[in-house]
């Protein structure tokens, strides 16, 4: 695992790809769910966000890619201000994509069509075909099921498809909201393995949220704890795994 083999963030001098600076956001006009969240993700890192249910973790993601308005603060991508970007522009102009917490396959389309839509922004058919082959290489299971309707697949397969679709347009940063939620332990393991592999092989940068805090941190370089709309701890994944307070609150004691 990345966290335990002593590696910190890759090239500790590498520059931040995503910077979230003191943002405020919420659903009800009078209530800020996020009250000054600050975090960053460096190029090539896997960063894990943990924290209790309802803390605002998913809300951070929505604010980053423009699904929810940012009221105060800024979001930078590669040093460029992308605060309140339109969701459909996040991928095209900032290279940011997301695998949302809730199932998000196009359920009445085939696996193949789902992947094609991952490259909706491209009209280069040859390139699309090439990327689909790439994803099938990565997840052979998806290749076997190319013509199956996505909605009829198991939860784990749908998750794989969501991740595969997210990779189609060669994103610079993937936001993954609880990739392991609702999956059997063995599938969870293979999903984390795939994330680690993508990070090592193609340098994919990942910001993920995990309920499964221990495994999530173990697969990551750095981590943040978010509670009540603010980050309360941050550090190298190993350090968070070793931190007594974090252990007591989020890693099941001891």
């Amino acid at each position, binding site marked *: 695992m990345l966290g335990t083999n002593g590696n910190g963030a890759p090239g500790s001098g590498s520059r931040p790809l995503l910077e979230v600076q003191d943002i405020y956001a919420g659903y009800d006009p009078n209530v800020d769910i996020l009250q000054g969240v600050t975090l960053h993700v460096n190029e090539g890192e896997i960063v894990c966000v943990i924290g209790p249910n309802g803390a605002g973790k998913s809300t951070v993601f929505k604010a980053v890619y423009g699904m929810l308005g940012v009221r105060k603060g800024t979001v930078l991508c590669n040093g460029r201000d992308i605060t309140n970007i339109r969701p*459909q522009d996040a991928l095209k102009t900032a290279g940011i994509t997301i695998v949302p917490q809730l199932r998000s396959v196009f359920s009445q*389309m085939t696996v193949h069509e789902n992947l094609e839509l991952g490259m909706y*922004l491209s009209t280069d058919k040859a390139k699309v075909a090439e990327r689909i082959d790439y994803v099938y290489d990565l997840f052979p299971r998806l290749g076997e099921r190319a013509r199956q309707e996505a909605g009829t697949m198991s939860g784990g397969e749908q998750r794989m498809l969501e991740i595969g679709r997210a990779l189609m347009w060669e994103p610079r940063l993937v936001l993954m909201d609880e990739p392991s939620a609702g999956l059997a332990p063995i599938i969870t393991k293979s999903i984390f393995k795939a994330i680690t592999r993508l990070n090592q092989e193609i340098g994919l940068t990942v910001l993920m949220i995990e309920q499964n805090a221990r495994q999530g941190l173990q697969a990551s370089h750095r981590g943040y704890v978010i509670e009540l709309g603010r980050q309360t701890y941050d550090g190298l994944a190993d350090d968070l795994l070793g931190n007594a307070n974090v252990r007591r609150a989020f890693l099941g004691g001891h």
Partner: protein
Amino acid sequence: MDTLVQALINGIAVGGFLTLMVLGFSIIWGVMGVINFAHGEFIMVGAYMAWFARSEWGVEPLYSALPIFLIMFVVGFVLQKLVVNKVIDRPHLVSLLVMFAVSIIMSNSVKLIAGADFRRVNSDIQRGFWELGDIATIPRKHTVVLVVAIIVLVALQTFLQKTRLGKSIRAAAQNREAAQIVGIDIKWVYAFTFALCIGITAMSGALTSTIIPVFPFMGPPWALRAFVITALSGLGSVKGTLGAAMFLGLLESLVATYAPGSSGSQLAVITAFGLLVVTLVLRPQGLFGGLRPVDAGGH
């Protein structure tokens, strides 16, 4: 036997153009989550435009249908931008009420401009009957409308399945958030979908204006049939809508044919709406598919 064949043939013809008349309602609901209460009024406006073109300029409804489609496409686009778009993120009831208000405005405006009289839309090319031996006769106007309906449905299905824009519409219907994530401009998809559906709906009114009674308040029964068919077929599917419309067309035709005395048309209507009640009570997910809420996110 002959009566049965005749009833079946009528039913299929009615089912065919019923599909065209209600499809826009189903697609708008499926893609945007908007229940277009003014659906019947767009059929009405299309029929009046065809009547006007025929009586003022002598243009056959078959030929005015395309220009009417284009004009109402633009009207739909503008209406979406100015009105529907503003309420689309609010609860369903809001858009439903807004469209209900629009329907009242439309029917009363037409009454103000064209009067409350029933209008008869004549057609030279749609006159007469085809004889099927001595088994049955088919009104020529039914065949013309049916053939055009089939052409439009095939074109629409191909568009939705094969083109990039069509795929983005289906994607938006199946998962709005995911559609945005892959880069689909959802507002544009909504505007286009609404425009397309309003265009097709008005065109269906123009085409059927030679068959159905045309008057300012003709809309509601058609909107309600759209409800029945959508409840049976599920949202936004061309094939499902075709199946359910055929079913309803045949049922209404058989009931009308075999009903005693002059009770036919009332009994047909009673059957249609009885079907709605039964479907919703017994199978809330619909018979041929399901009333999927948009954004259900896959199941």
